């Protein structure tokens, strides 16, 4: 069993398949490609679940690749080392799940350049899995940079049949914006990694970039703070933390539905994971100092963005902005620096991944049928699409933190964790400020539901089909996930210890 279950297989298989897909030898029959990718993603999800079933938190999976008997860059102590601990395996399974849903959802949204699209989607999957499973700082950075290329093409390329020129230019511009923001952040991250690598070498004498060998004990205090801030700028672009967030609404709005699902569902979580991996685990001393400041940023994220969300009229933008607001909660959970806060944070990554995925799916379905996203024009969807209405009500309720659903647990846990925080008074007060999220999110989410789904019928849409079987499967899977984790939260919290 040990031989069969390997991390490189999990991480690099999508990349290999993506190369196979784009090669001219592979069939260009669109139906075949679609089915092949769906089949592959399901297999990959199954494989990830098997990995999860055999997971033992005392012995995390470890793996290393050597090239010709040598490390990747021996001169810098950089290795091709992978590790799946309890946090990263949860996020890996979530990645695999969301990509499977995105592949299923692609059927109605992707009408052009299918080969290229699916190839890029799988490459993105590989890069994200690599981020979650790498056990070496530079390997982490490699995957972090690698993820930009497929993400650029997925956001900026033209996959719809009849998109206008303005839409295309807008999509291109937002893709360039995304790539420049990410690259800006990752350059600071590189600086942080280089400094951490060098000072760790100087203090401990071990030339290694592996997370296991890095410790901040004997690094000068000022340097520690510098490193931590540099890293936080990198992760703050991805998470996103407020002043660095402006790429997100554009990118999410202009991308096609499955890509938005992937971006909101899993790409943002890489930022949270990075903060956990680097700042929380590797640099705990400086994180204790930074955490109160970061908590203030988290509160700004939560409250300021909630108001911004309320002012939006485009339903896709509402969902995109609500992701930023929710990511503030993830950040706040991490800032509490205790077990409850951490597990709340990871739990919220999972539950928000599912919720945002579902919301983008609903928005996508509405847009496909009505070709409209303005909330002031949309009305009366409930009469036209009753099944979609059912799902929309449930998922919107889940997103505003109603009991029975997973986000309820994570929001409550975050607040408990923050209240129990021992490090700073700021954090205790910030718990009180975080509570308005529950009210504010219900404001904008119910506005979305109320304006869009109720009211008189829209003219000119007499023959609109209700959701198809593909869309039904995606929404049902998301809802099932939300319910399972809501009713049985111990499945994740227990794994985190």
């Amino acid at each position: 069993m040990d031989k069969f279950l390997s991390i490189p297989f999990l991480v690099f298989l999508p990349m290999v398949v993506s190369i196979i897909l784009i090669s001219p030898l592979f069939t260009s029959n669109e139906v075949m490609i679609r089915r092949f990718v769906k089949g592959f993603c399901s297999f990959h999800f199954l494989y990830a679940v098997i990995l999860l079933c055999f997971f033992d938190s005392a012995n995390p999976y470890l793996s290393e690749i050597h090239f010709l008997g040598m490390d990747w860059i021996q001169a810098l102590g950089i290795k091709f080392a992978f590790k799946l601990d309890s946090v990263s395996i949860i996020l890996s399974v979530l990645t695999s799940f969301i990509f499977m849903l995105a592949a299923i959802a692609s059927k109605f949204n992707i009408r052009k350049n299918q080969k290229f699209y699916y190839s890029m989607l799988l490459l993105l999957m590989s890069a994200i899995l690599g981020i979650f499973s790498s056990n070496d700082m530079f390997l982490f950075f490699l995957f972090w940079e690698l993820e930009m290329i497929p993400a650029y093409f997925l956001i900026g390329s033209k996959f719809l049949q009849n998109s206008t020129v303005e839409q295309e230019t807008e999509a291109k511009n937002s893709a360039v914006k995304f790539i420049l923001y990410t690259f800006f952040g990752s350059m600071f991250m590189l600086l942080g990694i280089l400094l951490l690598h060098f000072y760790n070498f100087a203090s401990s004498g071990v030339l290694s970039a592996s997370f296991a060998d890095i410790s901040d004990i004997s690094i000068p205090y000022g340097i520690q703070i510098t490193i931590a801030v540099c890293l936080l700028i990198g992760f703050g672009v991805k998470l996103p933390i407020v002043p660095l967030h402006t790429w997100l609404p554009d990118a999410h709005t202009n991308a096609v539905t499955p890509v938005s699902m992937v971006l909101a569902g899993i790409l943002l979580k890489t930022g949270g994971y990075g903060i956990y991996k680097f700042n929380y685990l590797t640099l705990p001393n400086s994180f204790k100092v930074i955490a109160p400041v970061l908590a203030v940023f988290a509160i700004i994220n939560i409250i300021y963005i909630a108001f911004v969300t309320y002012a939006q009229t485009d339903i896709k933008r509402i969902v995109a902005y609500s992701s930023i607001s929710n990511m503030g909660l993830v950040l706040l959970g991490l800032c509490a620096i205790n077990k409850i806060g951490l597990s709340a944070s990871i739990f919220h990554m999972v539950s928000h991944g599912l919720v945002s995925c579902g919301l983008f799916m609903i928005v996508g379905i509405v847009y496909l049928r009505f070709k409209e996203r303005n909330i002031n024009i949309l009305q009366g969807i409930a009469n036209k699409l009753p099944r979609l209405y059912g799902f929309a009500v449930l998922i919107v309720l889940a997103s505003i933190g109603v009991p029975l659903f997973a986000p309820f647990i994570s929001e409550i846990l975050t607040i408990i964790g923050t209240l129990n925080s021992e490090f700073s008074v700021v954090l205790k007060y910030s718990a009180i400020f975080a509570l308005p999220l529950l009210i504010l999110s219900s404001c904008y989410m119910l506005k979305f539901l109320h304006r869009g789904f109720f009211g008189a019928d829209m003219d000119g849409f007499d023959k609109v089909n209700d959701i198809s079987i593909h869309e039904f499967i995606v929404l049902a899977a998301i809802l099932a996930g939300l319910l399972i984790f809501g009713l049985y939260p111990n499945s994740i919290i227990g794994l985190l210890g």
Partner: protein
Amino acid sequence: MLNDIFNILLPQVIIGIFIVLLLVLEIICSPKMYKYARFIALIGISSAILFLSTVQTEPQYFGMCNSLMSDSYTLLFDFVILICGFLVTLLSRKLIKSIKGSAYSYFAILLTAIFGAMSVVSSNDFLTLFVSTEVLGFSTYFLIASAKGYKSKEASFKYLIMSAISTGVFLFGVSYLYGITGSINFNEIYKFISENDVSVIYSISAILIIFGIASKLAVLPFANWVIDVYKGCESSVLAFLSTIPKLAVFGILCRLLVFPLRNSFELTFVVAIAALITALWANTFALRENNVKVILACSTSANSSYVMLAACLVSVYNVSAVIFYIICYVFMNIGAFAFLNIVDEKQYLKVEDFRGFFHSNQGLAGAYAVSILALAGIPITSGFVAKIYLFSAIASSGLLFVPFLIILLILTVLALFYYLKILLPLFDDIDKNAEIPKLSPVFSQKFVLISAVIVILLVGVFSEKIIELCRFAAYNI
């Protein structure tokens, strides 16, 4: 003397023999036989590569009255210079077709430039260095001017003027240094400065020498030639201009900074600031440019300044990073210019001209994309590893230089912006009628492009062997 020739000079002698051969053949052969010139040049370069194995490197060998030397460091640089020369010769097919009659002399000049570059790297005193940089420089003027039309002549003249000024500056610095130490030999100068205290004049002379010699790298203060020259050059000449002089000058620069010019703190600072200003200038200048060649010119200048910054913070680690970066860099550049060589340069100049190129020529556009992404430092290419290695060398040089590093990293983001500006139009969707026709490159062009891409990707993944080689060379400097 004869001993020296057999121990270290054999590759240069081979190149010299082929230069004479080419010049003689130009008189004998009719202009119709211009095609053979390229093969003779290729044979010359490959036999020089073979004869590199005869060069004595262990221990360091000093020959010709201590004016030349060889060790594994010079051997590595000679090898890369010859490989680049080989690829540039392959790329020259298109150029010599247009200048038929003077094909033989073109290759004679190219080989002279290679000869000069090899001598620059292995020189051990300032006189040899001066003579060999002039050999390299003069052959470069002719190479730039070799294409038809007045543009190339203009570019060549600009390069000539700028080189003349910088040579003057260089010689001025050398004369000061001679005045202080009483010698022009690197070893003796090093001995003198490590035994005696040196004055501020020493630093001034060191700065003048470095700036004089760095004009070929397009680092400020002598950098503004680069845009005009790149605009007027043929792509095969650009493939030469952006690789071989760079290799030669960085080869000698590291040695100068490690031995004769070591003890100057002011030098480190002034050079670091000059490099930083160059990086700022080049990266911001490229942002509003539209011509692919000009953007690549700015990228050349910017990349040189990054390497310069690492080189002036002298340590073994930095030297190995410099060698590794420059080796990775020349292959990226050759890849980019090979692509420009394949497409018709007169027709495709601006970034918009390449719109939709990917749809008709997927392989070519893919290879070009790999080269440009490597220049931008995106993973799985050698550019990523090279950037990490170089920046880690700068980061480990001390806290004083961390602000420099921060500025460099931000500039890298700007650089990504203009690299994307070159690259993204290739993937635009356009009408079927406006599409660029499918190009059919000849074997030699394809060979150069593919080998550059293979080197970029292989070094990006299996970088350890090359890094080890660079470290070995840096230890033996």
